[in-house]
């Protein structure tokens, strides 16, 4: 009788421990996944930087400008060799009452070389009005991740 009680208690305890061991398996898998991600990030950022959050807020306004055979560039941002977990950009460009001839214009550009962004939020707004342009190019609110 005593042996039967002992066996019953052992079986009951084993039944309690079974879900716990089942829960431990995903935990180990999660730790392994995190370790792999960390190793990957470390390899990527051997020479670069690790940035948790990067907010870029760019606002360009051009009014009453007469350009002839010239280039105009405003709000340029070069971020190289970085891992960014959360990239949040807000770009706003306004061009009005401007006359350009054979001109190129670049407003609000974010250029990332050898960079990675896990989460990216991009908010772009461009307005052009009352403008006379001949053979001109306008690039407003550009983001390049290579």
């Amino acid at each position, binding site marked *: 009788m005593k042996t039967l009680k002992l066996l019953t208690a052992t079986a009951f305890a084993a039944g309690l421990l079974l879900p716990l061991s089942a829960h431990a398996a995903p935990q180990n898998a999660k730790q392994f996944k995190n370790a792999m991600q960390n190793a990957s990030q470390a390899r990527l950022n051997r020479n*670069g930087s690790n940035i948790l959050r990067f*907010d870029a807020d760019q606002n*360009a306004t*051009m009014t009453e400008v007469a350009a*002839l055979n010239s*280039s105009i560039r405003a709000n340029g*941002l070069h971020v190289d060799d970085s891992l960014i977990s959360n990239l949040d950009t807000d770009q706003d460009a306004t061009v009005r009452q401007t006359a350009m001839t054979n001109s190129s214009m670049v407003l609000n550009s974010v250029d990332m070389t050898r960079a990675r962004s896990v989460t990216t939020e991009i908010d772009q707004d461009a307005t052009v009005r009352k403008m006379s342009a001949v053979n001109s190019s306008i690039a407003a609110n550009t983001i390049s991740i290579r």
Partner: protein
Amino acid sequence: MKRADMPTPIRTFWFVPLALATLILPGFGHAQSARFTLIDARNGLTPEVKQAYAEAIGTDASSAMVKNRIKIIASPRHGADFDAIDLPAHVRHVDLDISLILQAGPPSSEPINLNHLRLARRAPNRVSQKTTIQGR
């Protein structure tokens, strides 16, 4: 001093100086934000002008936050082609407001390059750029 021991006007109108401080102190903060650096580039981009532009942006900043307001006067004849600026590695927050005022004259044939930052391997957490180009 207990509240009951205070003179009646102070006990009754204690909120008046508090309200005045609440209204006036933010005004001081706003007044400070009106300070800016004026750069005269009407005679072209001399080395002195380029150095003044770089220092105004914050190449020699000692704090982690750079907040600068810059106004540049340029002529269409010379343009305003400034080089990209490398900020110190310890800068974590950049807030730049650059205004370019082009003098009246012939149409510009020189390039304009403003508010251009190069952040290699050490990007700040937050960058705020505002550029206004206005002709006459």
